[in-house]
């Protein structure tokens, strides 16, 4: 037991110390104020949102169902997110050599890694679920100590089943891709197919849910049939029963133990196969291709190399871009249902109908803004350098050139996808030439703002000692802060847009918003080449 405790402690303090923002540099205290404030702000927003929703269902006295639905939604997000997080967190880790050489059971190694994944998801679930649980205290009926006990236990238990599902899917993906010569490419393709499949399922989920709802005797049955833990939660909140609670705890623990036992049978086979790196046939030096490039071209090529050979990075960054193109295609094919999707408050978009139907250029602009700030490539480009940051720092190129190469490469990745989506929408909406020019400019200006924010934030909160790429791309303070800043910008933009749309013409709004984001770009650029350069030079590893 002492051995297990030491292993968990070592694992937590090295790779996944989420609170260690940067290496202790020259005795200065790490600044964790901004991420903490953003996290609290997010929790406050979720609490407010939950209150509004509870208020709406209050007359029907079904707040407990809403609570269960929140738990259900978070679990689904955990599964989707977890699929491409679990792969790099569990398989092919940097500390394999150390852990596998220690006199411990292999299943213990697997347990430590899954436990680490569980702790990450526990934090993620708590940020999203705790505010809704707190808000329920105001609206729920007969809140007693059993509610607090059940909710606290649920916070700890709810992530278990989603992470197991994610691990199973990740193990399948890793197992299939480990059979290919180009394992990374195989992993990217299979993961992308999974995600597209999930998008397809969610698009058709309404019909599936209708079917289940028809065959369920009540909404409660419906939730229980769809997702057992959420159903148990709503039942325990309304009608607490200690036996049910103990049964639920035991079921979760049993599933967890069983899962570790079963996966440990295949785990090391998959892991060692993933480690087999293929080598090319001997190539004579005379036949090796040698090409000269300018330093900037070469730095951009290096960035592409990192991007395309890091599956979790490409899937994370590419998700919003693929979504943008798919959304553009869906608008062309199923215009009416897409308009309903964008205007329906339940879908989360909640755009005014008038805005969507009469101001199509502004609709495209909004989609560009959403896509741009969901695509956070640069928020992990510094962290992904890891110890290799010293290579860059020793090279005879200016820091500005190094940082700008990271911006250029990100723009080169986002711009083609944005333009493809734009063109599809231009054809569908018969956009005029002035709007086309403005929207094309926006397709560069807005992603540029997102890239500049990501890079500045990553320079402030680098994680150069990560064990896996997933820790950097999916679980770093930098990714979280960048996405949140982007989302705050988008929400502010939408609020201003909704306020002005009836007073100002669409074209003036389009010009103004493009201009404002251009100004933001200029300010961010000035900050990057001054403060950002200093931050880069101060990085130590």
């Amino acid at each position, binding site marked *: 037991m002492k051995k297990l405790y030491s292993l968990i402690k070592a694992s937590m303090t090295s790779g996944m110390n989420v609170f260690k923002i940067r290496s*202790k540099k*020259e*005795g*200065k205290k790490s600044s964790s104020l901004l991420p903490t404030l953003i996290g609290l702000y997010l929790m406050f927003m979720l609490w407010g949102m939950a209150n509004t929703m509870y208020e709406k269902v209050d007359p029907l006295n079904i707040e407990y169902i809403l609570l269960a639905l929140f738990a259900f939604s978070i679990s689904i997000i955990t599964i989707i997110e977890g699929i491409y997080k679990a792969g790099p967190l569990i398989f092919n880790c940097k500390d394999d050599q150390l852990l596998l050489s220690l006199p411990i059971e292999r299943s213990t190694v697997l347990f430590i890694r899954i436990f680490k994944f569980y702790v990450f998801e526990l934090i993620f679930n708590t940020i999203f679920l705790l505010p809704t649980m707190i808000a329920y205290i105001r609206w729920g009926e007969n809140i007693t100590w059993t509610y607090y006990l059940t909710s606290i236990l649920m916070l700890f238990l709810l992530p278990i089943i989603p992470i197991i599902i994610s691990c199973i899917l990740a193990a399948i993906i890793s197992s299939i891709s480990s059979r290919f010569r180009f394992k*990374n490419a195989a992993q990217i393709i299979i993961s992308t197919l999974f995600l597209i499949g999930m998008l397809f399922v969610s698009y058709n989920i309404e019909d599936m849910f209708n079917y289940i709802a028809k065959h369920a005797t009540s909404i409660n049955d419906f939730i229980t049939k769809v997702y057992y833990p959420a159903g148990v939660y709503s039942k325990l909140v309304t009608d607490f029963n200690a036996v049910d609670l103990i049964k639920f705890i035991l079921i979760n623990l049993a599933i967890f133990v069983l899962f570790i036992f079963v996966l440990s049978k295949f785990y090391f086979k998959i892991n060692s196969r993933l480690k087999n*790196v*293929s*080598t*090319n046939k*001997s*190539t*004579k*030096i*005379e036949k*090796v*291709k*040698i*090409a*000269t*490039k*300018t*330093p900037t*071209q*070469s*730095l951009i*090529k*290096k960035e592409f*190399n*990192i991007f395309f*050979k*890091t599956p979790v990075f490409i899937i994370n960054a590419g998700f919003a871009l693929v979504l943008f193109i798919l959304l553009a295609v869906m608008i062309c094919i199923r215009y009416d249902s897409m308009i309903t999707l964008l205007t329906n408050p339940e879908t989360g978009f909640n755009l005014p109908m008038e805005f969507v139907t009469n101001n199509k250029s502004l609709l495209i602009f909004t989609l560009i803004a959403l896509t741009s700030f969901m695509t956070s490539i640069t928020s992990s480009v510094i962290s992904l350098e890891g*110890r*290799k940051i*010293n*290579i860059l*720092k*020793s*090279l*005879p*190129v*200016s820091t500005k050139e190094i940082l700008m190469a990271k911006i250029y490469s990100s723009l080169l990745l986002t711009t083609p996808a944005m333009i493809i989506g734009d063109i599809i929408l231009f054809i569908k909406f018969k956009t005029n030439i002035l709007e086309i020019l403005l929207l094309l400019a926006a397709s560069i200006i807005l992603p540029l703002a997102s890239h500049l924010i990501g890079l500045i934030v990553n320079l402030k909160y680098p994680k150069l000692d990560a064990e896996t790429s997933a820790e950097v791309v999916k679980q770093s303070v930098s990714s979280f802060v960048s996405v949140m800043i982007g989302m705050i910008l988008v929400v502010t933009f939408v609020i201003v847009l909704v306020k002005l749309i009836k007073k100002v013409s669409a074209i003036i709004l389009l010009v103004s918003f493009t201009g404002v984001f251009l100004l933001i770009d200029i300010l961010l650029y000035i900050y990057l080449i001054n403060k950002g350069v200093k931050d880069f*030079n*101060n990085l*130590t590893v």
Partner: protein
Amino acid sequence: MIEIKNVTKKYGKKIAVDNVSFTVEDGEIFAFIGHNGAGKTTLIKAIVGIHDFDEGEILIDGKSIKDEPVACKKLMAFVPDNPETYEQMKAIDYIDFICDMYEVDEETRKKNIKKYSKLFGMEDKLNDTIDSYSHGMKQKIVLISALAHDPKILIMDEPFVGLDPKAVFEIKEVLNEMVKEGKIIFYSTHILDVAEKLCSKVAIIKNGKLVKSGSMKQIKGDKSLENVFMELEDKE
């Protein structure tokens, strides 16, 4: 020429390098020795521009690394103690990347890559990705990329670790050849007998302070470098 003038580097309250001064002239092989954690790597990283330093000055051919970092770095090549590379790149792409940074023309880079990859027995392995290499092979790639751009100053941190005996022999030959051309070799090492035979000058650092510096003859006198080093280590 490398001029280190009263350089001090602190990590918080801890002084890693304490008021160190010495000079390395053109055509010298300079050994920088000290116990683990003495401050060797910290000073080396300051010389090549990876770390900033708190006090003093470092001049590379008369130019300050603080004021003209790019011009200084153009003159140097750095081989770190751990062969950190972009492992998912092919070796040839990595070497090409480094050459691009130093703006090496195609002819020179072809000539040098061919020369050094043959020397280190890597000529038919350059098309593989670096993650398929052993530690020693990675070290060879770092050495090839450092030598491919004909640096005037070669700075190395523990360069012989992980290399096979043939590669160690070859690198010593290369270093001697470079010195004959008036180039500077500055390296840290724990292999004192190699340093004794190879180097014309030596500096010994202990707990961040320079305790001895001068020509190899002057420092060791009739003793071996190992004896001198052990005596200094035993002194409080």
